[in-house]
């Protein structure tokens, strides 16, 4: 098992492949690509963009590390065909037959489909794939294959138009495969499906490692898109069958799969993705753009922000608010956002519901707001009540602002909120009202959850974190190394604890690891050596103030060493060991949270010193006094930093199994930091553990 280690940055070339996104279209994924490229200036990028016609203008200013942009039109003029090699006759009908048979086979035989697709790729290097597919022969092959596989009853027999359209759709879909592949160190597809075809070509041609990122699940989106399909049933079945097999193949061929959230992961694993190579990398926000909001509105206020759309289910929110207003007559509901074109009637419907419920004075439709963070600050709590979501930015932005959130149990909402808010079933006004009342009535709970939400958002959902994760993935893939799964164990524990009350199997599923890995009972003869090897890395991380890395390493070391000892004694007591492992993880997290608190205090002290300094400069008549204040502030900052460092050492030594060093550090922490130990009880579990 490879373990996470501090990785070494190295310049690499990345082939970044998107579909309908960067740099030709604005949108969430495009912005994400832009952030990724700008965030990794040490790497160079060759962008391959699947576009509609090729006539689209570039809409992003390209940074210097974008070496090239290669648009691949799916629907525009035909791509240039390679010159046919003399004397070579490709058995094209056989190729077509094999491919169509693989597509229409009742089983998802990814190997058969993969071989057939690869044959087409090899063919495209020698001859025109377009001419092969846009041919009477291809229409005949599809028509004949349909006749062979078609069910006897229920579904209308495919027509000539169906066969011709199937062939046409296939030709357009396979254009990205026929483009000459780009040589780079890593092929990174930012979607599955057609967008992953160039990555497959890169892998097959140059043996490049392949990475697939999914912000939404490509296949799921295709299914939803084809609910109102422009095609008849036969073509729809043919195309979606192709997409399904292609997605499965890409999951299989990719060295690493990086979904944007655990919710997506369910679909990926359902489609056969190997959990061991799935690494969730959350999207993030820029913390500077969402500073903590400390003030609360004067009256209990629920804030909602977003696009006014039936999928956001504002009716449920308004009905829930009617209950809230009945209990808290001063409460208000503020709805920020506008209705996109075509959604005006829905907005009117919501307004009518407000009038029907007699809530006109308490519910306000605020329209579009200039700075979205103002919308979060306007509420005591922030609510998202959608019936469908991916991984909503609204929530992680509100959490970054320090607002306690309530969301519906759809998409990635529950993993975003974790234990820092409430998750209720969708379309359940009573449950939503209960949650709102609980938070609005309990000031202490609301503020505590708001603070926890900010900590969680800063820890998991920042742009920097996402970029670092990709830097690490690139580095491992570029070096042809297996991506570590140790941090996955940490992620699994955190996610499992946040969502399932500590169920071991859930943690395993979320981590993409078999349960035995999370429980650490898999035979690992070198774990003892591993712990000692990791100790210097832990110390370096603490010295470098990289608390996230330190916590991750400490967790791994503690869990491995503890579990190894237990495993040796207990044999096959898997469940018990699992509990111990999770317990260890829990106490490390407690310590880490305390350390984070201390660091935050240190930062606040530094801020105070800066303010004092400013005052000193401005107040010339009391310069000496200001200087003393500044010095005092600086000392407080240094003191707080020492405390933070010390506590970090406590954590490190505790987990590294160095009792003497741990004891000394603990005593020092007690002397320097009595108030923390009293208030947070952070040292008690350390002492018990020791």
């Amino acid at each position, binding site marked *: 098992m490879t373990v996470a280690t501090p990785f070494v940055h190295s310049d690499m070339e990345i082939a970044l492949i998107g579909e309908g996104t960067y740099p030709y279209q604005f949108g969430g994924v495009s912005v994400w690509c832009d952030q990724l490229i700008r965030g990794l200036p040490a790497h160079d990028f060759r962008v391959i963009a699947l576009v509609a*016609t*090729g*006539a689209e203008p570039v809409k992003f200013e390209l940074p210097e590390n974008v070496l090239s942009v290669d648009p691949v039109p799916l629907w525009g*003029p035909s791509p240039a065909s390679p010159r046919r090699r003399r004397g070579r006759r490709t058995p094209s009908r056989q190729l077509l037959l094999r491919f169509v048979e693989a597509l*229409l086979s*009742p*089983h*998802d035989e990814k190997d058969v489909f993969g071989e057939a697709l690869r044959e087409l790729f090899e063919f495209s290097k020698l001859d025109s794939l377009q001419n092969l597919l846009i041919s*009477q022969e291809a*229409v005949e092959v599809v028509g004949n294959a349909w006749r062979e*596989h*078609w069910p006897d009853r*229920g*579904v*209308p027999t*495919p*027509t*000539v*138009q169906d*066969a*011709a359209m199937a062939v046409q759709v296939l030709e357009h879909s396979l254009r990205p495969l026929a483009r000459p592949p780009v040589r780079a160190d890593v092929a990174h597809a930012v979607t599955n499906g057609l967008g992953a075809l160039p990555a497959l070509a890169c892998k097959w041609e140059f043996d490049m490692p392949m990475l697939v990122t999914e912000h939404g699940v490509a*296949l*799921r989106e295709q*299914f939803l898109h084809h*609910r109102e*399909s422009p095609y*008849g*049933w036969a073509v729809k*079945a043919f195309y*979606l069958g192709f997409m*399904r097999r292609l997605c499965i193949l890409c999951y299989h061929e990719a060295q690493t799969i990086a979904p944007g959230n655990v919710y997506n992961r369910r679909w990926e*694993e*359902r*489609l*056969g993705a190997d*959990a061991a190579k799935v690494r969730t990398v959350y999207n993030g926000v820029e913390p500077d753009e969402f500073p903590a909001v400390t003030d609360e509105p004067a009256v209990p206020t629920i804030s909602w922000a977003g696009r006014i759309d039936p999928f956001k289910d504002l009716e449920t929110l308004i009905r829930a608010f009617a209950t809230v207003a009945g209990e808290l007559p001063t409460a208000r509901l503020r709805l920020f956002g506008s209705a996109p074109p075509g959604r005006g009637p829905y907005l009117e419907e919501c307004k009518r519901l407000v009038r029907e419920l007699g809530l006109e004075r308490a519910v306000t439709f605020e329209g579009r707001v200039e700075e979205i963070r103002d919308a979060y600050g306007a509420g005591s709590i922030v609510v998202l009540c959608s019936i*469908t979501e991916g991984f909503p930015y609204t929530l992680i932005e509100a959490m970054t602002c320090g607002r306690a959130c309530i969301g519906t*149990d*759809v998409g990635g909402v529950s*993993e975003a*909120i*974790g*234990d820092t*808010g*409430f*998750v*209720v*079933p*969708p*379309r359940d006004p*009573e*449950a939503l009202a*209960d949650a709102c009342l609980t938070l609005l009535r309990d000031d202490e709970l609301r503020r*505590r959850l708001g603070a*926890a939400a900010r900590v969680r958002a800063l820890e998991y959902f920042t742009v920097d974190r996402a970029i670092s994760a990709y830097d690490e993935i690139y580095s491992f893939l570029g070096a042809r190394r297996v991506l570590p799964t140790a941090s996955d164990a940490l992620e699994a524990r955190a996610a499992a*604890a*946040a969502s399932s009350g500590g169920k071991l*199997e859930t943690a395993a599923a979320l981590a993409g690891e078999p349960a035995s890995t999370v429980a650490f009972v898999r035979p690992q003869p070198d774990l003892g050596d591993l712990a000692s090897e990791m100790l210097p890395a832990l110390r370096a991380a603490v010295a470098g103030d990289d608390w996230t890395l330190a916590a991750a390493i400490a967790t791994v070391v503690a869990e491995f060493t503890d579990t190894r000892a237990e495993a040796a004694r207990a044999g096959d007591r898997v469940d018990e060991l699992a509990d111990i492992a999770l317990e260890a*993880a*829990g106490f490390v997290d407690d310590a880490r949270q305390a350390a984070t608190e201390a660091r935050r205090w240190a930062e606040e002290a530094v801020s105070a010193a800066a303010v004092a300094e400013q005052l000193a400069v401005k107040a010339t008549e009391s310069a000496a006094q200001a200087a003393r204040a500044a010095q005092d502030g600086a000392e407080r900052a240094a003191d707080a930093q020492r405390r933070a460092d010390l506590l970090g050492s406590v954590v490190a030594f505790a987990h590294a199994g160095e009792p003497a060093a741990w004891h000394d550090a603990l005593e020092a922490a007690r002397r320097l930091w009595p108030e923390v130990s009293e208030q947070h009880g952070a040292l008690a579990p350390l002492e018990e553990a020791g």
Partner: protein
Amino acid sequence: MSAGWTAPPEGRSNGAVSSGGWTTLTGPRRKPSQRAGLVAVAGPVPQRLDGLYEEFREILESAVDPLEIASALEFDGMSDSVAQKRYGCSDVFELADQLYGSVPRRPADPPPPTDPWQFSKFRPVVQGLLYGLPALCFPAARGLLVGPGVLPMLVVALLAAWSLSQGLAALGFIRVGHSAAGEGEALLRTGAAFCLAAVVAALAMCDSVVHARLSVLLFGAGEGAYMLGACVLMVLGHGRWLFLALAPGVAFGAAFLALGRPPGFAHVVWAALAAVPLMALISVHIITRPKHPPTGPLCTMHELLASLPAFTFGLIAAGLLAYPVAAGLSGHGGINTGALLASLPISLSMGSAEASLLWYRRRVRRLLRTTTDLTTFARKSRAALCMAVLQYVGVAGALVMIVIAVAVGTGLVQQPSRVELVQVATYLALGVAMFLALTLQALGLRAFALTAGAMALGCEISLRGLGISAQVVACGGLLLAVMTYAMLRLGQALRHL
């Protein structure tokens, strides 16, 4: 605290509990479902799923995969926890599997596709008049078209304006179909101005050689302006404005001819003729007036290249149609009376050509939707092509006969000789060949139509010393070639999507 929603943590910071959705991931990881085939064997719908069946009936019956149902359920707010609590399934995927397996596939018929080739009964007449009425302006303007170099100047104007308007129309259709509202208008507006400048430049170059009078130069420029304006208005669907533009020229010109060309009336008629291109340009100016400032590039290289075949075809077609008349008038092989007689009815028949093409495309599209066998489709679609050609030949032939009868009856020409009848028939064959070439172009087969047309024009020019024989060989050969090619290629289904 109600059940079903997440409680904040008590004690350990990471010990929170979420709604049950996550726990559904705990079971052994399943492989992708092994489907029994394109359509799973349907069993009875379990009673507990009745409500879902009713709510999602349409989706369930038309689903192609259990995952399609899973995505629809999730999209409607179904979570794993709800699937567990309400339906006893481990997750949404299992629920979807059950629904897929228990509901037979009965996909609803897709809505009938919109018919892009629908046209009113009057359209062929309207189009025919728009193509044919300008011809009336030429005899009325005879007093202007005197002196040296008249024919070369008119031929240059025709060739330049026709080919450029074909290219501009193609460019306009590309832009109108693929860009935001207003961008097509902007491109056509600017494109028409550029093309008009090119026509005037071509005329000026020709004038520097043949030293034609200013009136000839202006008439040629007016001819070009009208054709380009007509092109823009027809691409944008405002062809009716052309009647307004044509009205003064046609009315005064017809009256002038009917009254026996009274000399005192000539200047009024010429002013009315000058109003035709001016009004066409004013109409273009009004229709294409920009409503928003332009956001993107006016035209891309890709669009220009895409319009090149249409431009080339326009040039070749103009050459083929003008050469028999122009060559005869300029003394090569004698005046081609047959071509002169047939040119007006062939122009008028363009409305019918468009109608026949639209009929053919609708007919073949219907065959695509109703035929399940490729051989049957090929046979029936070829029959439809022959039918469309016969429709066009019938209308064009009738118009030719009417024009000849009127010309003979009014004493404009004598009873046509056999040679002149051959000339008429050859020109009619050229009209049919142009109809087929346009059909091939409309169905994406540009290269053959261009090559065959260019070869026919080259043949006609190089064999001009042979007189009518050259025309028979060129036009007959062209018709045979495009007909054979069309019969072969247009029997393929992919051409008609």
